[in-house]
């Protein structure tokens, strides 16, 4: 089975500083990786995905992620954090089996951006 791991329960960063939220993956075959963000009592919002191609993926709200095959990582980054970026971030891997295709999520990382 495919899986992702988010080693940090929480990341704290000051506004204006760069941020990184870590994700490592374990898959058989080519990885299809995603980042979603969740605000309190809301559903998940898609940020970006890696399917194939350039290792640096750009997404919504100024976020980007770097796919690293040798380190089996897909870390989420942003050059300059905003207080409004404070939320719960989930890394996910897509697993395709026959006609089924599901996302398997990590446990989530809470990002806290302070003034």
């Amino acid at each position, binding site marked *: 089975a495919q899986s992702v791991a988010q080693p940090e329960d929480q990341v704290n960063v000051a506004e204006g500083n760069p941020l990184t939220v870590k994700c490592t993956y374990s898959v058989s075959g080519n990885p299809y990786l995603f980042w979603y963000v969740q605000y309190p*009592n809301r*559903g998940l919002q898609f940020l970006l995905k890696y399917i194939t191609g350039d290792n640096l993926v750009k997404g919504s709200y100024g976020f980007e992620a770097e796919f690293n095959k040798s380190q089996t990582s897909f870390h989420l980054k942003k050059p300059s954090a905003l207080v409004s970026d404070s939320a719960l971030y*989930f890394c996910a891997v897509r697993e395709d*089996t026959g*006609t*089924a*295709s599901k996302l398997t999520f990590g446990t*989530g990382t809470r990002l806290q951006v302070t003034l």
Partner: protein
Amino acid sequence: EAEVAQSPRYKITEKSQAVAFWCDPISGHATLYWYRQILGQGPELLVQFQDESVVDDSQLPKDRFSAERLKGVDSTLKIQPAELGDSAMYLCASRPTLFNTEAFFGQGTRLTVV
């Protein structure tokens, strides 16, 4: 912008009662998912539909949970009887094609079983 609609947003029910959640996916999306998210954890897949057919319900507790998507559009997830451990956020998501795009999530239904 088209959204996945879910209702109700919040539901409180007593254990042993029946409860149902409704989801209306983005128009034209053939694939529909129900996920359960327990507080402090990532979402876990309960069931996936392709049009009106179930393609994966391996993680659905079938003794008490049921899901249907009769006309291949909107969907209902039912729990009967509800247990205290069912308290969670229930998320519906949809995709326009099976493999090519990301899933779009609704705002979820927060269930509390007392």
